[in-house]
């Protein structure tokens, strides 16, 4: 008999199920709108030119493969902090922060979660927006924290339930942890406007909450890295010493290279040193030290003026294509004769869009049109191209008219 007889089969991944069904479908018009990675207008993965150039530099420099420090590649973590905080940020210039390299967004979130579990003794509760990225909950739970929620998405209007959010946040017990999506909220695409962010900041400050920002789409959302980081920077300027996780999976297309970072804004540089030492103690028994390749590519891009400029252009290009697909989808829906209000499709931002489609309608899209998405009506706009946006609009109109 086996030690493992009682081990249950893990639940199937819902998104994987979508992709599996898509793969089996033989319809030539099929569309996979579950994909969480950027695609170009031909539906192909896109390796950024600046990434290729950085890789060529790496190949020609014949560097060794020695272990990185536990906290990661210093040029990368410094550039990552500067990218998020802004070069003129007082917190950045004074050095009252620590940034450690993490395994993309997930790994960075997990380091932060473990750190809070160990050192933030005021509360075990993490408040997530409703809904949030599916993996947030198990990450915090596995780190030993508890999950709560605050209202966020209003399904009736497919937009932000701002009064609901403010109401719920005002009732969060002091010194709890609140997680906010810096931009391009996943999965809804619904972000607060700047005036709303200001009110949220004032409120979390009043409630004395520990703010945890998840920024997985800087640059990828609006096309402007400063605009996408506005909320994070504003909060810090208001004196909120937040923690932040960053990912370079989408904005640099470095998905499988796992480039990310976790930052803690501290009172001063001395505190930052102490925090760093504890982060290292957490990281070492997880994987000793982080992988170099992705961080080195990102570092070269961020620290080489020409490549950085090229990157900014390319990330804007990706964001613009997404925005253009949103616009074309709405105009095509109008052309189809749809009488519904589809404004939320262009109001929302980033890779994902909560269409507002009901499960039965999603089911029809899958069965009758071979258009695959998750049951909650979420589509990945990255899977839309100028070649298939017409078909998509036609199909959506058919199931909603």
């Amino acid at each position, binding site marked *: 008999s086996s030690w493992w007889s009682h081990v249950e089969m893990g639940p199937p991944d819902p998104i994987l199920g979508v992709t599996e069904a898509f793969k089996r479908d033989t319809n030539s018009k099929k569309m996979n709108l579950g994909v969480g990675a950027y695609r170009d207008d031909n539906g192909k*993965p896109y*390796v950024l030119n600046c990434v290729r150039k950085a890789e060529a530099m790496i190949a020609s420099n014949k560097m060794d493969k020695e272990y990185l420090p536990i906290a990661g590649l210093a040029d990368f973590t410094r550039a990552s902090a500067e990218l998020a905080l802004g070069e003129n940020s007082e917190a950045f210039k004074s050095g009252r922060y620590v940034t450690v390299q993490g395994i993309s967004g997930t790994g960075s979130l997990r380091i932060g979660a473990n750190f809070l579990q160990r050192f933030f003794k005021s509360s075990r509760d993490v408040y997530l927006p409703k809904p949030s990225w599916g993996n947030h909950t198990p990450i915090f739970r596995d780190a030993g924290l508890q999950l709560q929620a605050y209202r966020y998405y209003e399904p009736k209007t497919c937009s932000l339930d701002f009064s609901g959010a403010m109401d719920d946040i005002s009732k969060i017990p002091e010194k709890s942890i609140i997680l906010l999506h810096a931009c391009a909220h996943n999965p809804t695409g619904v972000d607060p406007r700047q005036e709303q962010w200001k009110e949220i900041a004032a409120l979390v400050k009043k409630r004395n909450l520990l703010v945890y920002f998840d920024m997985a789409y800087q640059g990828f959302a609006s096309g402007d890295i400063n605009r996408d980081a506005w909320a994070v920077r504003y909060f810090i300027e208001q004196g909120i010493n937040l923690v932040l996780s960053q990912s370079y999976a989408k904005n640099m297309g470095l998905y499988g290279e796992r480039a990310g970072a976790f930052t803690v804004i501290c009172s001063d540089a001395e505190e930052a040193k102490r925090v760093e030492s504890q982060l290292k103690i957490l990281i070492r028994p997880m*994987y000793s030290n982080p992988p170099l390749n992705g961080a080195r590519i990102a570092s070269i891009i961020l620290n080489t003026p020409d490549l950085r400029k090229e990157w900014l252009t390319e990330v804007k290009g990706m964001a613009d294509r997404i925005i253009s697909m949103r616009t074309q989808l709405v105009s095509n829906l109008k052309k189809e004769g749809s009488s519904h209000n589809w404004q939320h499709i262009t109001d929302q931002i980033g890779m994902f869009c909560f269409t507002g489609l009901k499960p039965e309608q999603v089911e029809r899209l899958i069965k009758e049109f071979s258009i695959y998405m998750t049951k909650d009506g979420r589509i990945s706009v990255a899977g839309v191209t100028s070649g298939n946006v017409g078909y998509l609009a036609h199909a959506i109109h058919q199931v909603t008219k």
Partner: protein
Amino acid sequence: LAAYRTDEGQPWVLPVVKKVEQMIANDNSLNHEYLPILGLPEFRANASRIALGDDSPAIKENRIGSVQSLGGTGALRIGAEFLRRWYNGNNNTATPVYISAPSWENHNSVFVDAGFKDIRTYHYWDAAKRGLDLQGLLDDMKKAPEFSIFILHACAHNPTGTDPTPDQWKQIAAVMKQRFLFPFFDSAYQGFASGSLDKDAWAVRYFVSEGFELFCAQSFSKNFGLYNERVGNLTVVGKDADNVQRVLSQMEKIVRTTWSNPPSQGARIVAITLSSPQLFAEWKDNVKTMADRVLLMRSELRSRLESLGTPGTWNHITEQIGMFSFTGLNPKQVEYMIKEKHIYLMASGRINMCGLTTKNLDYVAKSIHEAVTKIQ
């Protein structure tokens, strides 16, 4: 951190790795898309095959699983997290975990952070005889509560360099079987220790042939020189495919909240190398180059000490294997080495054999001689 050095004292990127990296760089069809959660399939299969052997009954019977991990550390952590959740009941944090005395210092932290509450040591190093305390080890195993987890070094024990002989491994396996103890192998030096992949995997394969269910955390940091790419693999051997499948599905959940999916660069290098007969041969050759240099430094150091007539016996230098050697120097002698001779050892007397070169052998041997004769 310990890494291989050439005779010039330099880091060494394996020629086969340089070659494969160039292949990858020139291949424009490759992109940076996410790997599956459990890792690159070609990497996983090849990595486990390296550990278990081409003719492994477990592979033939389709009762193995693999999880690409962030180095050997990552593989240990995923295995530890899984065991804490699913071994010996559900979430049984009280299951004793036994780690050798001494061991790699991170072993303890891995299992503590995975949630285990009862971490113990088992006798391993006999300082008096400068060798394995087999009796102490077996006694600890006989006294250990049933179902305890034992962390075993597959070869090139870190830090002592002292491995059980095949005969001793057989005795260890017999007791573990009798007491229902779980073997969790840490294999960080396969190929790097003796120069032979098969020889260095003998213990793991023996346990498999004895019908054990086990975990083996593999690192490709040293034997591929891929330290900073974090290439590791957790090999799972179970009773049958069904059990292994369920185990992997739960490991997937653990991976998803730890790093989501593993880094692609290092796994690609290893997969390409292991799946090409020619590159595989080149790799084995590169590995043998490293192992042979270390073996040469061992024999040269020993012969110098014996020529100098340094008090004590020095056969342990060549009997030990791998990157490290427990010289037997006491803390005062170590202090002398550091302060007076600027030779850096650990307080335990552990020396990194990779730090020896033909240029410094004489100096090191003379310094050890001085330390041992001047300081008691």
